[in-house]
């Protein structure tokens, strides 16, 4: 038993080290965002809000933030709609070519973003829809739909398959059943999917950078600042974006949790 406890302690330290590695860049970036040195090192400089003042005074960053907000919310709505349709089709029907059908929605995340960026840039230019805000929205809806599909499909798994049939037997049409039974049942998953896809879209930079033209989103602005030189503004923007993303994730979690609570109660 004693050697087992020793092993547990060693493994515990090991896990802690892994977490240190994973969180070091996040925590340091937050610390640096309040640090007066242009090139931060130890010992730290004075506490300052200079970098935050700079970014809040910069109209380009406000514009990028607005673009990011528009892109991530629109992409989330489209991706969640597409995800819902696919999840429901997969749940309800068996049909020929179901494999390719599912592959069509599930494949995008397995292709490196730089390749999708090139392919979408070329294709969007060809059909004349590149360089606009909606180009990024379209691209992100394709890239994030699989996540929405996964979340909603998991929720549908929990639905009693007889529920739909019962509604039909009681005289409800397919459309009425969808409106009064299935959508209410999936509501928490739909909300989760919206926040999750919005958060993924909010951080994506490779495809945005390629297809956006002059309409930059926040991550693209970060990319351009980083390319130039060392500028602690990046840390301030990063911390700010982190707070927004985490708010979205926590909201998604709350919907997820409330759904579980409800299913426990019933």
């Amino acid at each position, binding site marked *: 038993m004693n050697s087992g406890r020793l092993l547990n302690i060693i493994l515990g330290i090991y896990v802690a080290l892994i977490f240190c590695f994973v969180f070091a860049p996040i925590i340091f970036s937050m610390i640096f965002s309040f640090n007066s040195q242009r090139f931060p090192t130890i010992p730290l400089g004075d506490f300052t809000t200079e970098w935050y003042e700079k970014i809040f005074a910069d109209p380009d960053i406000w514009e990028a933030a607005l673009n990011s907000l528009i892109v991530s919310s629109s992409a989330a709505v489209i991706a969640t*709609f597409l995800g819902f349709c696919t999840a429901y089709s997969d749940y309800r029907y068996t*049909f020929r070519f179901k494999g390719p*059908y599912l592959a069509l929605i599930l494949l995008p995340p397995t292709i490196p973003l730089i390749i999708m960026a090139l392919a979408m840039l070329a294709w969007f230019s060809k059909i004349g829809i590149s360089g606009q805000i909606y180009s990024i929205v379209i691209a992100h809806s*394709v890239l994030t739909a699989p996540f929405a599909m996964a979340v909603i499909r998991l929720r549908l798994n929990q639905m009693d398959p007889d529920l739909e049939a019962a509604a039909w037997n009681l005289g409800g049409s397919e459309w009425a059943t969808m409106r009064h039974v299935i959508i209410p049942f999936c509501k928490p998953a739909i909300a989760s999917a919206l926040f999750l896809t919005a958060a993924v879209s909010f951080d994506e930079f490779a495809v945005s950078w390629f297809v956006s033209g002059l309409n930059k989103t926040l991550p693209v602005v970060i990319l351009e600042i980083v390319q130039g030189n060392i500028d602690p503004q990046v840390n301030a923007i990063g911390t700010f974006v982190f707070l927004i993303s985490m708010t979205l994730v926590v909201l998604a979690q709350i919907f997820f949790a409330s759904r579980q609570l409800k299913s426990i109660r019933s």
Partner: protein
Amino acid sequence: MTTTPRKRIGLYELTWRLPIIVWQCVFFAGPVLFMVAMSFFLVRNYRMTEAFDFANWERMLTRGFFWDSYLYTVMIAAVSTVCAMCIAFPAAYALALRASETTRRWAIFLLIIPFFTSYLVRTFSWFVILSESGVINALLANIGLGPFTMLNTSFGTLVGYMTLTLPLVVILQTVTMANIDRTLIEAARNLGCKPMATIWQVIIPLSKTGLIIAAIFCFILSFGDFVAPFYLGGSQEPTLPILILDTTKSGQQWPRAAVVAIMMMLTLFAIAFAGIALAYRKRKGAK
């Protein structure tokens, strides 16, 4: 509630099935297929003209720099995969088989957080931490060591790859191992199997599928990432994603970039295919 395949498809059914087909064909399959076609186009006077010509393929595949870059990228992505799998394993083992359910859930929740922080900002943070006058070298200087050059080396690139892949690999390994039937591990122990032998002969074979899938994802992510090799590796040895970036952004040579992208996709398909075949291969004597 399954309908027979022969049944006529109604409006209701089509409403749910069609949107994704149309959307993904136009905006996902379209771009990918067009990229394949584009690899045969020609660029004349900085303008791309539609053609069917193998010039781009010939130009890229007969050049040494492409193959150097190709080998380097495959190699460093493989090294990254091996590192991530080995580094993650003890942690995943601890979380999956030795920690309580609550601890495991919290650990997984914490490991999801990095996915929602900007990877660019994390890379920039490493850039500052690892630099010659950065945090690590400042700490090492206190005990009389260094300074060490960590940026613009393969080590820097690997740190970036680990930042990207390690949380995912730990999560996937943990979930896989947590799903192993505990009675089998108990049985091995009762039959006198030593802990290390249990890991090699019981736990790893039982979680083979999940481990291989984790490795495939790790390889895909490292192989396709341009941020780590660019900012932390200094792109002295350009990886394929950097080659795509340079060719597209500065050179306007989209068809050549398409050739590189297609070669990358083929490589990934081959590796994913081999991995999945390996993952689902039945062992001799097994049911």
